[in-house]
């Protein structure tokens, strides 16, 4: 074993605390770095992996059973551009009693098994159906309904399906089917109210772009009778939706990774420079027995590198494992099967970068020691530490505060560079906490703005079969699906809602598509009757419409069309021109942001509403309220305004935020701990002196804590505004990534005075908690041993 390695190992054994701190800091920084990196690299993996594993369908189409036979639908599998297909699966509306008298319609498909050449299902639990009264439900239905294996599900009384036992839970890639039974179990006697449809899943030869998929869909549509195609969806839209949540995380994941690396660098720098100062005499001795300057540097680099390797060795697998729940949550949020995500090459590069930083910092910090002559190193290493921070000490002495406080305050500036580096580590910690708190609060506001569940608790769909899990009017399928003939007029429905106990207010609305010159696709326009300003769309700029001809739109509409608030534009509805004036930019993430909202009176003709958004009185049982309004026989389907993946996505983001903020806080704590260890060891003589003349152990603790509390206060002054600025920037970027939307000012204003005081307290707390253990060690340290060794 070489002298360098032997000496490095001996120093590691001698400096156990320092070694442990390096290993811990590197564990945390590799944990944060690899965690962030895995999430970054694997951010789209849940969908891609699941899609590949399931031989996911590039194109899924639904056909009306009343317009086309199953054989003709099957024949579409030979359409040019289709490389493989599965189906057709007969799909029947399953009216499920969700409890509390609430009936929901869910699409139930007849399928022989979970496998196949396209759109394979992953069994999450249980097994596939073996009898016609056994059902396999989707994970989303299981989540939404609370149904589990072994439960018996009764269909509503007017539904021909028998009671069925849940025998399995399955997930498909972007599958919108709620449940599966054996094909023989699907009723053949469909009615207008309970229509039969078929679904096909296609793999295409070329499916890289929406156009390529649309071309095949158009060919299939053209090969069938008019009205046969009810709906189609492509995997690119699903992928976009699945990737969106992780995509919005990228900006803050990058920020966190950078922070973790910077904080670690600061701490390593402090550690090495402290070790060099403490080991100055050692350097002299090493050089006097023949160590070259390079070997001296190598000894110090080795002292850092060995525990750093240990830290990374533990941190990397922990980070990979820790990232799996996040990836699993992403998969779950979008009803995808879970896969194990790991990015070996980026991870290896990240570890190499982290260790490179350690070596570079160690070499730079120990160069001075390496260059020092043997005699001067021994001399300066043997002399008592010289006084530092004279001016600050004098100023502090003049302050009329207990002496331990003023001595501690002066100590904060005794080693300005070390204090600055420690303070930066605390700044990073408190900035991270400030940022995380702000973003969590803002995201909570954003979530409330998206779901609008504070304003609208129940949505009543009139005449139609709403999309599965739909929560709002515009979430309805583009094609309305099989409709029933309502026996109720708009007036009757309105009367029904108004008479329903618990109703506070409601607004009727309908959606149409308009064409706009210069815009390739039809633009949905939602028109409201009466006052709709209460519906909860946050205003980014301008105001909500309040007159005929006025309209509001999301940011993307303005960005895409180049219009501004105050602009007039013409839109065409079924060939009729409508003049609109844009009066407000709203926070509205539905669709791709290309939509308009206006008053019903703006639309020509006597257009009837088909949807009612209802606010109920506080304390009302929303499920019971919705169940009371729902009446499938009259085409009324009531949905409560609950999340459909939104909460999971927000939990995922806030969970990631909290996890990374915790790691960076721990790094800051380790930085403070390390600095106080170095300081108290270097100041052992001074501490012994003040103890000898009467400073109690508690006063020593107060003195040491004060020295870092000062840094905590300064860190709060710097770190909180930094975190707030970062919050503003990242939230803006996230808004653009997620929905190409600006963010209303109110969502930025989440730092109230109590939060700010709490954040400042957190900064001081990080400093004091990090210093507590070494402060107590200093308080308990002996006097005679130190003073008699001079």
């Amino acid at each position, binding site marked *: 074993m070489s002298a360098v390695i032997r000496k490095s190992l001996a120093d590691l054994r001698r400096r156990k605390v320092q070694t442990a701190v390096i290993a811990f800091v590197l564990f945390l920084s590799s944990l944060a770095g690899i965690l962030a990196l895995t999430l970054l690299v694997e951010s789209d993996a849940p969908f891609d992996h699941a899609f590949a594993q399931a031989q996911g369908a590039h194109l899924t189409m639904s056909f009306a059973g009343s317009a086309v036979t199953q054989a003709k639908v099957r024949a579409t599998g030979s359409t040019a551009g289709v490389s493989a297909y599965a189906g057709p699966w007969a799909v029947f509306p399953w009216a499920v009693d969700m409890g509390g008298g609430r009936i929901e319609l869910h699409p139930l498909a007849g399928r022989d098994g979970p496998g196949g050449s396209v759109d394979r299902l992953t069994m999450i639990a249980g097994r596939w159906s073996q009898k016609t009264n056994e059902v396999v439900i989707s994970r989303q239905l299981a989540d939404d309904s609370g149904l589990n294996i072994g439960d018996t599900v009764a269909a509503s009384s007017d539904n021909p399906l028998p009671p069925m036992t849940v025998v399995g839970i399955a997930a498909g890639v972007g599958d919108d089917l709620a449940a599966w039974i054996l094909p023989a179990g699907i009723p053949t006697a469909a009615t207008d109210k309970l229509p039969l449809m078929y679904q096909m899943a296609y793999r295409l030869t070329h499916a890289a772009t929406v156009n390529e998929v649309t071309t095949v869909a158009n060919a299939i549509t053209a090969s069938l009778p008019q009205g046969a195609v009810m709906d189609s969806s492509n995997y690119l839209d699903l992928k976009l939706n699945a990737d969106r949540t992780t995509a919005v995380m990228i900006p803050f994941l990058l920020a966190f990774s950078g922070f973790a690396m910077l904080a670690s660098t600061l701490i390593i720098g402090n550690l090495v420079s402290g070790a060099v100062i403490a080991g100055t005499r050692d350097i002299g001795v090493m050089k006097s027995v023949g160590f070259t300057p390079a070997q001296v540097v190598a000894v110090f680099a080795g002292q850092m590198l060995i525990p750093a390797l240990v830290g990374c060795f533990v941190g990397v697998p922990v980070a990979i494992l820790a990232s799996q729940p996040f990836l699993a949550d992403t998969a779950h949020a979008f009803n995808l099967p879970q896969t194990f995500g790991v990015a070996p090459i980026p991870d290896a590069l990240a570890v190499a970068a982290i260790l490179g930083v350690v070596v570079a910092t160690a070499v730079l910090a120990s160069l001075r020691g390496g260059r020092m002559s043997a005699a001067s190193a021994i001399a300066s290493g043997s002399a008592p530490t010289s*006084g530092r921070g004279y001016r600050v000490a004098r100023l502090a002495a003049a302050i009329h505060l207990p002496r*331990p406080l003023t001595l501690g305050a002066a100590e904060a500036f005794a080693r300005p560079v070390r204090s600055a580096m420690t303070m930066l580590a605390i700044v990073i910690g408190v900035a991270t906490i400030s940022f995380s708190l702000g973003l969590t609060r803002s995201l909570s506001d954003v979530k409330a703005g998206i779901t609008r569940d504070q304003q609208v608790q129940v949505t009543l769909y009139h005449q139609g079969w709403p999309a599965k899990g739909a929560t709002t009017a515009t979430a309805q399928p583009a094609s309305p699906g099989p409709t029933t003939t309502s026996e109720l007029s708009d007036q009757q429905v309105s009367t029904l809602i108004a008479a329903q106990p618990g109703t506070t207010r409601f607004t009727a609305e309908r959606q149409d598509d308009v064409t706009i010159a210069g815009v390739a696709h039809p633009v949905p326009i939602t028109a409201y009757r009466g006052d709709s300003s209460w519906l909860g769309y946050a205003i980014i700029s301008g105001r909500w419409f309040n007159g005929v001809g006025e309209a509001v739109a999301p940011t993307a509409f303005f960005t895409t069309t180049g219009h501004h608030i105050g602009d007039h534009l013409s839109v065409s509805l079924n060939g009729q021109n409508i003049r609109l004036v844009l009066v407000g930019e709203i926070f509205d993430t539905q669709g791709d942001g290309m939509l308009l909202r206006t008053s019903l009176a703006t639309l020509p003709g006597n257009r009837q509403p088909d949807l009612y958004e209802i606010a109920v009185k506080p304390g009302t049982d929303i499920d019971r309220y919705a169940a009371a309004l729902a009446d499938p026989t009259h085409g009324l389907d009531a949905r409560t305004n609950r999340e459909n993946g939104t909460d999971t996505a927000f939990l995922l983001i806030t969970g990631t935020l909290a996890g990374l903020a915790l790691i960076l806080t721990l790094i800051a704590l380790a930085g403070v701990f390390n600095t106080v260890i170095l300081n108290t060891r270097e100041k052992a003589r001074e501490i012994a002196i*003040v*103890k000898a003349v009467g*400073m*109690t*152990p508690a006063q020593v603790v107060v003195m040491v804590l004060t020295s870092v509390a000062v840094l905590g206060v300064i860190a709060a002054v710097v770190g909180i505004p930094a975190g707030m600025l970062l919050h503003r920037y990242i939230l803006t970027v996230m808004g653009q990534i997620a929905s190409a939307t600006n963010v209303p000012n109110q969502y930025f204003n989440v730092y109230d005075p109590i939060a700010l005081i709490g954040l400042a307290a957190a900064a001081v707390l990080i400093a004091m908690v990090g210093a507590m253990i070494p402060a107590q060690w200093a308080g308990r340290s002996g006097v*005679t041993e130190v*003073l008699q060794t*001079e």
Partner: protein
Amino acid sequence: MDAIVQLTDVSKVYNDGRQFAALDDISIALRPGEAAAIMGPSGSGKSTLLNLIGGLDRPTRGTVTVDGANLGRLSEGGLARFRRQRVGIVFQFFNLLNNLTALDNVLIPAQLAGAHGNQARRRAEELLERLGVAALRNSYPARLSGGERQRVAIARALINNPPLLLADEPTGALDTHNGDEVMAIFADLNRSGQTIVLVTHDERLARANATRVLQLVDGAIAVDRGDSTLGVVQAK
């Protein structure tokens, strides 16, 4: 008259791989107003004895009572308060805080005791004046000579009017001239009623200034010479 320092059957054993008795079952009583010099060769236990009396260390066995306080019953905080109020300690290497001025160094024990600012400052300035270093009150230790530093250290030891002044080789780091001056200060203090226990290896200074001389050899008192009426209880 009651003893101001009473050591009864005190032993101090260090155990760093092998056991070593720095003090071996000694008993001493010192009366108020005495100037006791503890002498002996290196390793005889002089500093250990002073550390026990000053509450800087605890005995392995036996009891140490100083100014009525049984040090064995005091917590670490209690010992610190004892050092702050009952004793003043002067070290061979002065042990001043380098980043504080002479005046601020002197003030530290008073400030730790929570003394009133102006009152303590007046007292500190009086002590510096009395010890002949008032002009250096705003100087940092690095700018002072050894003798000047030791005078500042003595002022610091006296700031809280302790009944007992302890000095560990107070002239050990000084030249003869400065050493004589410092010893003269101690003699002067003793004449004004200050009880002093000092460790020294300089027999000349001890004879000239001490009212009582205790000679330690291998952790035991070999000689107790002086006019103490309490005398030596036991020399093993």
